[in-house]
């Protein structure tokens, strides 16, 4: 057992424990909460643990998706949608683009984590199968689901209402425009970058 196997094995047990504790406490919603919390915190823990920065960036996707699930459980469907669209689709792609700029690391550990990963996935799958086969108490059947009330319309109206958030909304729009133009300006390649080294040293600086 190396440290990687211990880490992933402990992570898998923690996930099963989180889902089990949630289900014991609150039934089906508690199981969903435990799963989302496990996804959130497990993704963050893997992000810190991993040597490879690409794996860290992708494990951050688990964190973002878990937070989106928590938003759903909190009844904020619009936030969950925005979280997935912007964080998973936009910010994570930006971070992966940044990963490509970082120098390569030679700390790759390929086969060492197989045992721990097996423990993690096996514990999770066994737990879920046991729960489903045992019958999960507290799940709502389709007839009893509450009426979907999306807040997207209310949030959009609140953003454009002069009595509420229209100033902040316009400021955010300006901020995004300025930030993105500034990012392009900062990250552009100077003319000296395209010229040969000798000319760049002899000519303009």
């Amino acid at each position, binding site marked *: 057992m190396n440290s990687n196997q211990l880490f992933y094995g402990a992570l898998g047990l923690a996930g099963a424990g989180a889902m089990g504790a*949630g289900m014991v*406490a*609150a039934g089906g*919603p*508690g199981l969903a*909460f435990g799963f989302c*919390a496990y996804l*959130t*915190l497990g993704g*963050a*823990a893997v*992000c*810190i643990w991993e040597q490879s*920065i690409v794996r*860290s*960036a992708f494990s*951050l996707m688990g*964190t*973002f998706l878990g*937070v989106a699930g*928590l*938003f759903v*459980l*909190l*009844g*904020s469907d*619009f*936030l969950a949608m*925005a*979280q997935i669209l*912007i*964080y998973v689709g*936009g*910010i994570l792609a*930006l*971070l992966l*683009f*940044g*990963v490509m*700029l*970082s*120098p390569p690391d030679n700390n790759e550990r390929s086969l060492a984590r197989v045992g721990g990963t097996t423990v993690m996935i096996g514990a999770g799958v066994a737990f879920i199968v046991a729960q489903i086969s045992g019958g999960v108490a507290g799940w709502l059947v389709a007839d009893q689901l509450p009426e979907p009330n999306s*807040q997207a319309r*209310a*949030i959009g109206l*609140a*953003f454009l209402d002069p009595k509420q*958030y229209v100033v*902040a909304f316009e400021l*955010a729009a300006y*901020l*995004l425009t300025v*930030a*993105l133009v*500034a*990012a*392009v300006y*900062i*990250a552009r390649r100077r003319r000296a970058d395209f010229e040969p080294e000798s000319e760049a040293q002899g000519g303009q600086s």
Partner: protein
Amino acid sequence: MALGAYIGVSAALFALGLICIISRRNILYVLFGIEMILNAASINFAAFNRFNGGGLEGRVFVVFIIILAAAESAIALAIVLNVYHLMKTVKPSEADFLRE
């Protein structure tokens, strides 16, 4: 689930983000940690909003947090690109001069 469970998840995510910022020696991990901390704040806003009557205020806050995070990561990555171009390093402890 009770409010305390959400706050516990949020606090743990905040702590993990802080550990990520402090412990890793790569400037990109600092960005990862900042995203975790912003997400922890978002969970708090959404949870307090839900358990405080379910209005719109907390949700609007979360939307603004997401907007700010998008702007922040774009700017921060442009800065990281420039830092790596100038100093040939992405370690915060080695990028320690303002200009050559």
